[in-house]
């Protein structure tokens, strides 16, 4: 069953949402940002329904925090709020919400929007590609095997630890963009308070392992690590990037194949 986390402090709205959602979804309620964050860290969710006016802050902060940490969203966010002005909607959607529903809401409309989000999520997971190719790097998403093309019809296997793989995947998916140590710690260990220096050791090992010609992991001071081609600055789109494969969104810098 689809799991929904509702972050809402108003008891009447909580009751309404339970009545509407419980027959179809597995629903958990959180009444403030603190308990919401504990829920987010401890479990996987499919959808988060997020109010803005919460006792310990604005729900917008949660969206912005996730965006700042550059986490890959495991869940979709629906903002559900009485702030209905255009500027507020733009704020919410720009902060990372996937949808914005204004209170008072029509139950049938909310259900229809949740179904639309589920369809989009299923379409995305069906397009999950089994192989990522970036420069001479080949990443098998099913087995997590990584190899590099070292010659015509020749590949060399690259033995990565699970942590190195996670770091590499994050950098690949954010090619050319700096990822802070804080974000990498969150991706790798799912914790915020771990020392960021732990990441440096793993990146150092990873650098040596993927140093097979075309790609390099670089560090921009106070910003983070990024993946780039050796002779290209990170802001330029490398010429070696393959064109989007079929069914692949055109904004991806690498190719993915089923």
């Amino acid at each position, binding site marked *: 069953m689809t799991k929904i986390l509702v972050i809402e402090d108003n*008891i*009447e709205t909580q009751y309404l949402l339970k009545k509407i959602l419980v027959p179809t979804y597995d629903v958990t309620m959180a009444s403030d940002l603190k308990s919401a964050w504990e829920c987010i860290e401890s479990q996987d969710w499919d959808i988060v329904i997020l109010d803005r006016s919460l006792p310990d802050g604005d729900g917008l902060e949660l969206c912005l925090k996730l965006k700042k940490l550059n986490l890959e969203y495991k869940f979709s966010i629906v903002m559900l709020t*009485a702030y209905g002005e255009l500027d507020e909607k733009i704020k919410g959607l720009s902060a990372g919400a996937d949808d914005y529903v204004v*209170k*008072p*809401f029509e*139950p049938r409309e909310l259900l229809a929007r949740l179904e639309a989000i589920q369809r989009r999520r299923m379409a995305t997971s069906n397009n999950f590609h089994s192989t990522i190719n970036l420069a001479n790097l080949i990443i098998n998403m099913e087995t997590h095997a990584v190899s590099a093309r070292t010659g015509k019809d020749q590949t060399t296997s690259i033995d990565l630890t699970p942590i190195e793989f996670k770091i590499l995947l994050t950098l690949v998916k954010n090619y050319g963009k700096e990822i802070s140590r804080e974000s990498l710690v969150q991706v790798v260990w799912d914790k915020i308070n771990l020392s960021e220096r732990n990441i440096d050791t793993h990146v150092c090992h990873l650098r040596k392992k993927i140093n097979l010609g075309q790609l390099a992991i670089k560090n921009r001071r106070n910003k983070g690590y990024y993946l780039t081609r050796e002779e290209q600055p990170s802001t330029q789109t490398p010429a070696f990037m393959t064109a989007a494969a079929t069914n692949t969104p055109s904004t991806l810098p690498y190719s993915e194949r089923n």
Partner: protein
Amino acid sequence: METVKTEVQIDSDIQEFVPRFCQSRKSDLENLSKQLASGDFTGIAKIAHVIKGVSRPYGFPTLEKLAVDLEKAALANDSATCASMYQKMNDYLKKYTIN
């Protein structure tokens, strides 16, 4: 608990929670009265904001409209309009609460 009726018909599933909704609104009115007396427009706007977001599904569309006007007046620090809206809300809820 007092008997309440809704302004418009609502889902029978929601009906059972209406008395509690009205009880919450009574508390809101008590708080609004205090905030009006002390000129706490931020507090008034907060309460109005909540009422506006929750009244219609529970069968009180007019209460929603009153809350919209109250929130606007509070954001504008308009004490006269706030007082007027408060009175209208008070009268409205009395109308739908039957002893």
